[in-house]
């Protein structure tokens, strides 16, 4: 516990070095060769991904950085997700930046630094490291969102993101302060006086009721900060504008990476800081949190999916859809919290979230790569109507985007369906607990929203196949992006049909979660 253990942090160190190499190489490369930095990034991240996938899932938790950093199965799993996201973002950005023609060096190093932040997020074991890691991610993304700085929408996206983000960060810190005030501790796990590992949740469980209220207030305010990250209603307000204005690859990065980071932190907080109620103990705090999260999950589901219906811009639609998906992921959180409130350490909600995020990476990335290919790297034609007749203009592109949309909507046997299935079934499982039968309403809301989301996703598909093309300009599919997109789609189908190994991977994270 009380050691630096730098070897555990090698992936993060590797990432920082990779970012620096890109930044320095940018200075020495000839201007026209600088755009190859995208391939450097993708290559470097692929090495990292292979490395991570080759690492066996740890069976015990190890700590580094004097207890600020933890290496466990969940962290490893999420790092794999981030590495894959990074590769796909790098691949789709390369062509995009060539067209835009500005500063690839900074762009890719910012992507890598944001990834470093996400890697740290996956391994946080302390409120301080939580805040710092998350701010590293957010600061990089502020810049990336405003990367097309001559474009009014992009600038607006950056400004809005930074204002709302700064406020969310402030609130988050405020919440942490209250929890610290109640418990006197910022570390999630630490060595107690008797040399035993202590969980912060045990400290919370032993608080007097007055201090418990303080902690509950702290959790609520902290949640607002994290809710901003994951786009939970009503803290989602920045999402549509930023998603629409940011460069498309950045939107993709935001929708997958940033959201996953937020969910990791929520999971870390509820597994390590929120106590599991021992049978017979009176601890209203957890029960209150279940209701709070259930309310937010329900609102997020309905808001995201209903507001997506009237959208005319595909990027904006994806923004609302991403809010809807946050609603589904919150179902898993509610399930875990309900289990904790009933005194059970069943974490099926977490493995469902892990599986969902893993599937979501490929589904969403395929969709965004398709959008980048379609707009040929510009930001001009994101209107849904422009996709009319895509089935005739570019059959492969239309097919891939259709499968991605169907998976997002949750059509079996695609990956997205099973993600939703596991989340909803974790909620149904939680609804069996005494006093939590009302959670079935939430499960039903999840099912109803599948239908609603089907509508607006299929409206896009309808335009691609049922309407006549408005332009007969051929669409060029650059080979690297095409390969990445098809690979994503193949994985979407494969994960859907052969879930076994993937589910196993997702449930493997549970072993080391709560220590």
């Amino acid at each position, binding site marked *: 516990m009380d050691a630096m253990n730098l070897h555990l942090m090698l992936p993060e160190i590797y990432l920082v070095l990779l970012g620096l190499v890109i930044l320095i190489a940018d200075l020495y490369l000839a201007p026209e060769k600088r755009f190859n930095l995208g391939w450097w990034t993708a290559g470097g991240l692929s090495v990292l991904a292979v490395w991570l996938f080759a690492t066996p899932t740890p069976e015990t938790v190890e700590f580094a950085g004097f207890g600020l950093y933890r290496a466990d199965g969940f962290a490893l799993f999420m790092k794999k997700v981030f590495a894959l996201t990074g590769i796909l973002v790098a691949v789709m950005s390369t062509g995009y930046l060539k067209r835009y023609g500005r500063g690839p060096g900074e762009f890719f190093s910012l992507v890598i630094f944001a990834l470093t932040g996400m890697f740290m997020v996956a391994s946080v074991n302390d409120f301080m490291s939580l805040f710092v890691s998350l701010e590293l991610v957010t600061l990089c993304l502020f810049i990336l969102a405003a990367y097309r700085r001559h474009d009014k929408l992009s600038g607006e996206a950056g*400004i*809005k993101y930074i*204002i*709302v983000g700064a*406020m*969310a960060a402030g*609130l988050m810190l405020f919440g942490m302060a209250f929890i610290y005030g109640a418990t006197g501790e910022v570390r999630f796990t630490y060595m107690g006086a008797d040399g035993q590992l202590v969980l912060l949740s045990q400290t919370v469980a032993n608080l007097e009721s007055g201090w418990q*209220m303080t902690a*509950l*207030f702290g959790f*609520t*305010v902290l*949640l*607002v900060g994290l809710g*901003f990250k994951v786009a939970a*209603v*009503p*803290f989602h*307000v*920045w999402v*549509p*504008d930023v998603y629409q204005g940011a460069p498309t690859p950045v939107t993709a990065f935001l929708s997958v990476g940033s959201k996953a980071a937020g969910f990791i932190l929520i999971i870390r907080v509820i597994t390590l800081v929120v106590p599991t109620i021992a049978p017979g103990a009176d601890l*209203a705090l957890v029960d*209150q*949190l279940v*209701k*709070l999260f259930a*309310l*937010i999950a329900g609102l997020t589901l*309905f*808001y995201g999916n*209903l*507001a*997506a*219906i*009237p*959208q005319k811009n595909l990027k904006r639609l994806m923004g609302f859809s991403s809010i809807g998906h946050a609603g589904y992921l919150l179902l898993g959180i509610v399930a875990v919290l309900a289990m904790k409130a009933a005194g059970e350490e069943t974490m099926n909600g977490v493995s469902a979230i892990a599986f969902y995020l893993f599937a979501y990476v490929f589904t969403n990335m395929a969709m965004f790569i398709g959008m980048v290919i379609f707009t040929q790297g510009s930001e001009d034609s994101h209107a849904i109507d422009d996709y009319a007749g895509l089935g005739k203009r570019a059959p492969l592109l239309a097919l891939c985007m259709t499968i991605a949309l169907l998976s997002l909507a949750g059509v079996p046997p695609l990956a997205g369906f099973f993600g939703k299935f596991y989340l909803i079934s974790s909620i149904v499982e939680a609804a069996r607990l005494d006093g939590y039968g009302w959670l079935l309403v939430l499960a039903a809301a999840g099912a109803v929203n599948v239908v*609603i989301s089907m*509508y607006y996703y299929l409206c896009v598909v309808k335009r691609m196949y049922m309407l006549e093309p408005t332009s007969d300009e051929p669409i060029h599919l650059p080979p690297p992006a095409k390969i990445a997109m098809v690979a994503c789609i193949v994985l979407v189908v494969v994960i859907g049909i052969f879930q076994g190994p993937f589910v196993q991977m997702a449930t493997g994270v549970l072993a080391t979660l709560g220590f």
Partner: protein
Amino acid sequence: MDDNTVATLAYVILFAPVVAAILITLFTRKSKGISAFLSVGSVVTGGILSVILLFDQLAKGPGTPPVISQFEWAAARDSAIGDIVLNIGVQVDFISILMSTIVGVVGSCIFVYALGYMKGDEGWSRFFAKFAFFAFSMLGITYATNFVQIFIFWELVGVSSYLLIGYFYQKPSATDAGKKAFMTNRIGDFGMTLGILLLFFAVRDVFGAVDGFSFVELQRIFTDEASRTLLFDAMGWKAGLGAFLIFVGAMGKSAQFPLHVWLPDAMEGPTPVSALMHAATMVAAGVYMIVRCYWLFAWAESAMIAIAWIGGITALMAATIAVVQNDIKKILAYSTLSQLGYMVMACGMWGAGAGMFHLATHAFFKALLFMGAGSVIHACHTNDIWEMGGLAKKMKHTTWTFIAGTLALAGIFPLAGFWSKDEILSASHHIAPLYWIGVGVAFLTAFYMGRCVFTAFFGKYRGDGHPHESPAVMWVPLAILAIFAIFGGWVGAPADLNPFGEHGLQSYLLVAYTTVAEGAHQQVINWPTGQGHMAKSLHMNVAVIGTLVAVAGLFVSYLFYGSRKFSAEKAKKMFGPIYTLVSNKYYIDEFYLFLVKKVQQGFANLCSIVEQHIIIGIFVNGLAGGAREAGDKFRKMQTGRVNTYVTMILGGLTLLVFLFVVGKEFWG
């Protein structure tokens, strides 16, 4: 042979055709030769192996315990009603081997014949793939170990039948016939599903963990006096209902009244299909199932009476319709219906052995007749017997084999049909009306077959083609089947006339369905009517009456259509209204059409109104409109102004704190 070898052989027989079907569909569609080789080869292999198994079984003697090999296919454990395990496997005993031999041997002859009949057809490979797939489905029924498996293959037989009836899919009448067959069968299958489930749950209620699908387990329960009484007491009237519902499945497949309407239309398929499926094997599946599950039916007396009467009605009705048909395949189709009715009737009067025996002999001579008809159609390019005539001189082989089949079907001593028909009439001896129906049907059978033979094969040629004998690949299978039709019946003859004496077919059959193996110990069951013994000698009065009416039938048909002493036209006029009724097939099709068009359509219209106005109008469009409206409202919340956003976030936070933190204090 030890049990392992037996089971392995059964698996080979079962799976060879489906492997052939898959290979043909995936790889060899283009090369006709390989496709035909695979398909025919798989079935001939199955036939040879079946015969080997049959001889093995004969050598082992009557009452050999069944060999059962099965694997778990799907299971739901710890469900609300306990474990449910579904098995797939083979149950090899005398009954299944006999059926598999019929399918294999008759099938082999028909597959070879099809090589000639289908020559030059575009869909050659498609045909042979489907044909092999059918053989697989049929063998799956044959070797099934439990109700779920038999039901699965029951459905597969339905599917392959649908595919093959509609083989000439360019012809609307063929696709219609396929649909009709499929839908009619579905009605039967639905009843069967209900029956299987009823039985399963009743057994589960009474005996707990017993596998209520497995034939062997159920047979143990039903044949043991104590457990049977327990079950019947618990089920009450539902016992008879369950047995009858399972029989409804057999009514569909074996085309019993009132689900018989699909079989005559099914003649739209290629003639080899009619011969194999709609005469010899598939339609026999119902009878086979009754024999297979005889322990179930035998004690459900009310169901048995219903079964016997349904069989009798089918036999009589179909025989009368056959008399007025002009299409040679339709005559044979109605004749098949009538003979199936015969078998079912026998089963319903505790004569399962007679039913199974007739199934076997009928398979051979009916396949022979159909293929003979195919050969004639092939030569004359018409189905109408009035456009044939005098074919005896032009098509020698076809003619003598067809006549052999006719005599066998009519039940002339000593051809195959005589022995099995005699068994059936003996079995029905104790319900007088049904016995006389049986005798009447025997007369009608001889009459309509005589009419067909005298019109088509004798007299002057009335068509305008130049018919000539079919190639050897077609008539050699006919000759082989004719030999079976002539001599095959002896194996089932009563003991004193049987070449095998006491060890005839009947002794095996009787033992097969009257005993239950409890390890090495055999338990002989006394059937409700005490029929558990083998006929030692002919019932002379039954045999004489049966033969006399058959000869009379043939003679009368000779007077009408051979020597033309009597005029068929005059007879038609004499029977005016009856003739109209019969030639319109008792208006059953019209009645069903009325049900579908008026009753069902009316109900559908009503549903449509409900759907249009209530479901779509209120629920679907109303909800969708609401969703769109809400979406629009939400969209407007997204003003794009940062101060709105910040207000929303802080407002939300305040609300949450109020609801969950402060409110907690307020409201306790």
